[in-house]
């Protein structure tokens, strides 16, 4: 398959990339190309201009300092999966990265490209929502702003990123000693994409939950926080029964639109959202194994 014709520009710095976007309205940014190239080949995207940011060095790499993990937007899933420092600082990041696509997708695909593409079946949106990540965004004239994952991803293939803005980095807190985190996904058997994914971060004091940050994706147009479940769980002892009772409330937080297709109906995904959340909580707290 051939992509439609497009003009190609390569940026070497973030500023250069933003200049190119400003002077070429409708241009698309390409990082690893693992979201954009399939779209181009299927002609679901037909930009006149592609701005290749793959070589922008300032957007690569992982720095861990002062309780924060800063991941450059061009860092690949494999780099996150294989970093022993990341695994130590936040096991959920490494675990989620390792479950994306296949080896070759992880070698080329980037965390920033994945988020900017905003496929509802992506893992990062869900995981970073539960982890309370902060996204760094750069715009024209050196303007910078930050956004939470839920402020950033608003629907299928839709973000609040402006036409001349670029997502430059993702900041994730290092997990504290009393935090347990886990991601459970029902993966599509062929693509590995999340039919339903649930990410959980639980603060524990002994066997008691002192706070929780839970998110679901895949089943919904954009990742959602499960505040009802978080509230139901906080202050409770982490038992099989309490987790089951709390996750039964997941439905309250999923919103009005549940995705459905020939593989998994909306009704089924709605039910599985609670189940995957429960499984993630069981695993994270070692209450049970599914």
């Amino acid at each position: 398959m051939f992509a439609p014709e497009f003009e190609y520009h390569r940026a070497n710095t973030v500023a250069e990339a933003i200049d190119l976007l400003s002077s070429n309205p409708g241009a698309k940014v390409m990082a690893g190309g693992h979201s954009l190239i399939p779209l181009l080949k299927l002609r679901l995207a037909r930009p006149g201009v592609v701005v290749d940011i793959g070589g922008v060095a300032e957007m690569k790499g992982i720095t861990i300092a002062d309780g924060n993990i800063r991941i450059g937007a061009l860092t690949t899933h494999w780099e996150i999966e294989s970093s022993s420092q990341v695994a130590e600082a936040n096991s959920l990041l490494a675990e989620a990265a390792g479950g994306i696509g296949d080896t070759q997708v992880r070698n080329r695909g980037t965390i920033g490209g994945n988020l900017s593409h905003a496929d509802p079946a992506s893992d990062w949106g869900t995981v970073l929502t539960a982890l309370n990540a902060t996204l760094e965004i750069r715009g024209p004239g050196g303007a910078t702003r930050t956004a939470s994952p839920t402020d950033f991803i608003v629907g299928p293939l839709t973000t609040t990123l402006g036409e001349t803005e670029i997502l430059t980095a993702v900041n994730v807190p290092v997990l504290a000693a009393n935090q347990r985190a886990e991601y459970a996904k029902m993966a599509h058997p062929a693509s590995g994409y999340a039919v339903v994914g649930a990410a959980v971060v639980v603060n524990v004091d002994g066997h008691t939950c002192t706070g929780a940050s839970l998110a679901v994706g895949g089943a919904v147009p954009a990742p959602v926080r499960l505040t009802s479940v978080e509230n139901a769980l906080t202050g409770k002892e982490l038992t099989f029964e309490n987790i089951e009772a709390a996750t039964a409330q997941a439905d309250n937080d999923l919103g009005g639109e549940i995705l459905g297709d020939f593989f998994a109906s909306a009704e089924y995904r709605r039910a599985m959202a609670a189940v995957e959340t429960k499984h993630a909580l069981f695993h994270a707290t070692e209450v049970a194994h599914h």
Partner: protein
Amino acid sequence: MAKIPIQVTVNGQTHQAEVEPRTLLVHFLREDLGLTGTKIGCDTSQCGACVVMMNGSTVKSCTCLAVQADGAEVTTIEGVADQGNLHPIQEAFWDNHGLQCGYCTAGMIMTSVELLQRNPNPTAEQVRAGLEGNLCRCTGYQNIVKSVLAAAERMGG
């Protein structure tokens, strides 16, 4: 559309070319360089028939533009053997009947090269997981896994 000049080193040989931006790396390798060992299977980055090594890690060359390979070192199946001596992974595939129709084989071998670099002594389960991005429609997975394990042993993993 303006063509873009690129320089790519493939199997140790440096090539200069001008390509359309939309040219896929796999088309550049097969059609411009005549290296047809790399196959196009699904053309949607699922099957892995087009896997090549680029700057030391595997990539599905149907989901990579030739312009993205500018300045890169690429190794295809044609560059895996050393001066006519088959790579131990190629030998293991031969010895263990790791191929049937052969269409997936180039991709399987390229992925296996990286798999054994990252994990020189994998379990069968790890081999299966590592080959998740390569499909064999003859379904000859049993012998493919056997081949990779035999290669690991031969390579002293």
